[in-house]
C-alpha cells in the first residue's frame, strides 16, 4: 500500500485497450494512485490523444481493432520519444519472441500479461520496477 503515498506518480496516464472493462479497471486502479487517466479504445484515438497531450506513460494493448499494438507503439514513440510504454496483452506471454525482441530493442518499457497484478501496474507508473516489471 506504500504505492498510494509515493510522490513519483505521474500526473497523466494513457490507457489504450479495446476492452472497455479493462479500461475501467485500469482507470480505477490508476485514479486511486492519484493519476489523471485517459482511456481510448483504438489506435487512431491513441495517436490523436498523444499528439495533443504529453503523457509520461501509456499502457497499450497488443491487439487493437485498427492496428497491431507493436506498430501503434512505434507511432507513439515517433510522436513522443520520451514516453514510457507498457504493453498489456492477453495474446502474448512475456517470453514470446516478439515481446522479448521489443523489450530488448527498448521499443517497450515493460510487458504485462493478462491477467496481471495491480501491484505491477502500480510499480510501472511509480517507476519502482524500473519499467521492466515481470509479473
Amino acid at each position: 500500500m506504500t504505492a498510494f503515498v509515493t510522490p513519483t506518480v505521474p500526473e497523466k496516464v494513457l490507457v489504450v485497450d479495446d476492452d472497455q472493462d479493462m479500461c475501467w479497471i485500469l482507470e480505477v486502479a490508476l485514479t486511486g494512485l492519484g493519476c489523471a487517466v485517459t482511456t481510448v479504445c483504438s489506435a487512431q484515438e491513441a495517436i490523436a490523444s498523444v499528439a495533443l497531450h504529453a503523457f509520461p506513460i501509456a499502457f497499450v494493448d497488443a491487439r487493437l481493432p485498427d492496428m497491431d499494438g507493436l506498430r501503434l507503439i512505434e507511432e507513439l514513440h515517433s510522436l513522443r520519444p520520451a514516453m514510457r510504454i507498457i504493453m498489456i496483452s492477453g495474446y502474448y506471454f512475456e517470453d514470446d519472441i516478439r515481446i522479448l525482441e521489443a523489450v530488448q530493442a527498448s521499443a517497450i518499457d515493460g510487458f504485462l500479461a493478462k491477467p496481471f497484478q495491480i501491484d505491477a501496474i502500480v510499480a510501472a507508473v511509480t517507476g519502482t520496477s524500473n519499467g521492466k516489471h515481470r509479473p
Partner: protein
Amino acid sequence: MFLATLDYESFFHAVMATIPSSILILDERLAVLSVNNNFLEKSRGVLSLTLGRRLHEIFPAAFQDTALDHQIRDVIATGRTLHRQRMTYRAPGVSLRTYSYSICPLQLQRGRRGAILVMDDVTDLLQLGEEVRRMQLHLASVVESAGDLIVSTDPQGAIMTWNTAAEKSTGYTHVEVRNSKLADHIEEPQNQDVEACYRGIAEIDDRRSVEWPMRCRNGESIPVSWRLSRMTDDTGKVTGVVVVGRNLVEQRAMEAQIHQGEKLAALGMVIGGIAHEIRNPLGVSSAAAQLMKGRIATPILLGECIDKVIGGIDRASLVVESLLRFARPGPISETTKVNVLDMLKNALMFASGEAAAGTAIEWKLPFIADSLYAEGVQNLLELVIINFVLNAFQAMPSGGRLTIAVRREGAEIIIEISDTGPGIPEAHVSKIFDPFFTTRSDSRRSGLGLSVSHSIVRQHGGSVTVRSSPHEGTTFIVHIPVARDRDMHAEE
C-alpha cells in the same frame, strides 16, 4: 537391231560420263585402262596422270591396306562378280568418305582379262541413316525417360507401346500389357469412359485432360490425369491414339500436406484468438478482485468491481461455451421464450465497444417489436448476434452504418444485420461459415465466430444466409423459430 546403229565408243563414253558412280577399268596387272569423270573429280586426279598407272599408285597409301587389290585379282581370276563391298578411305585433302563398290570381270581384247570397278560414295547416305537411327533412339529415350506415362494404342484401344514410367507406376511390364485393352487397366466406372472415348475416336480432344484412376499390379489404384491425342497417317486416317498420363500420387500427397499445414496454421491462429478472448475477461476479473482486496474505498466502486468480476467470468465462460458448442454441436433441449428486441439490445451493448468511430446504428423494427419472441437459448442467440454485429463493425473500420432489422414471417423471426463495408468477394461467400476460413491476417476472432453462429442457429432449427454486394456491404439474415405457444401452466 538398234545396237547395230550405235557408235560403241561414243556410247561407252556417254555411259561413263552419265553414271553418277566412279568407274575404273583395270587390266590383269591392275593398271588403269579407263576412268570416268566422276572418279577424277572425287579423287582430284587428272586423266593423263591416271591412265596407265597401277591401282596402288592412284589410290592413297591407306587404301593399300584394304582387301581391294586382292579382291580385284580374285574377280579377274574367277570371273565372278563381287557385289556391294564397303570401304572407307580418304583422298588427299578430302574428308573421310565411305564407298560402296562392286567388281565385275571384263573381257579385254586379245584374250586378256580385266575388271571394272564401280564405286559409289555412300558417306552422305550413311550419315543420313545414322541420323535417322539417332533420332529414333532419341525419341525412344524421350519416351522412356519421361516421368509421364506414355502409352500408344491402336484405334480400338489395344496397347501397342507402354513406357518405363507406365511400368513403374503400375507394376505391369510392356510385355504383360501389350495387346490388352487400355480400358482394362482403368478402374471402374471410368473404364466405361475410356471405351466411350475409343468409340467416338473422332471426337478425341487433346486439349482436354481426364482423370482416370489406374489399376496397379499390387491391387492399388493411383490417380492419373490423362490426355489423349489421335495419331493419323498422311491421308488423315486414324492409326492409333497416344495416351499421356500424369501420375498424381505425389501431387495429391503434396496437396494434402499443404492443406494440413494450412489447417494447422489456421488452428494456431484460432487458438491465439481464443486465448486473447479468454484472457481479457480473466484479466478484468482478476484485476477487479485485486482492487476489492483493500484498494477500494467506496461501496459504489466495490459493487462495480463485483459486477466486473462476475461479468468477466461470464464472458470467459461464454467463449468456452461457444467453443464446446462448436466442438460438440447437438440439439438444444432447454429453450425458453426469448424477447428478441431485448436480446438484440443486449448483444449490441456487448459488441458496441468494437464499433469504429463514425459508426451509425439504425434500427428497423415493426411496431410490435416489443412482443416478438423467439424460441431458444437467450445466451446463445445473443452470442450469434454479437458475432454478426462484431463482424459488421470489423467490416467498417473507418465507420459506416449498422442496420438491425427484425420482422416476423409466419413461424419465423427474421433478423437482418447489415453493414456498409466493402462486401464479401463472391469466391469467399461459400466459405465464410467454414470454421477456419479467414481473410484476416491477424488472429483476432479468426473466423470461428461465423461458423459458431451458424452452428448455434442450426441447433435452434433455424438458418443463416448471407447477401453481399461489392462496395455496398453485407447482410447476414438469421431465421429462428418463433416462441412456442405455452399454456398458463407451462408459462408458470
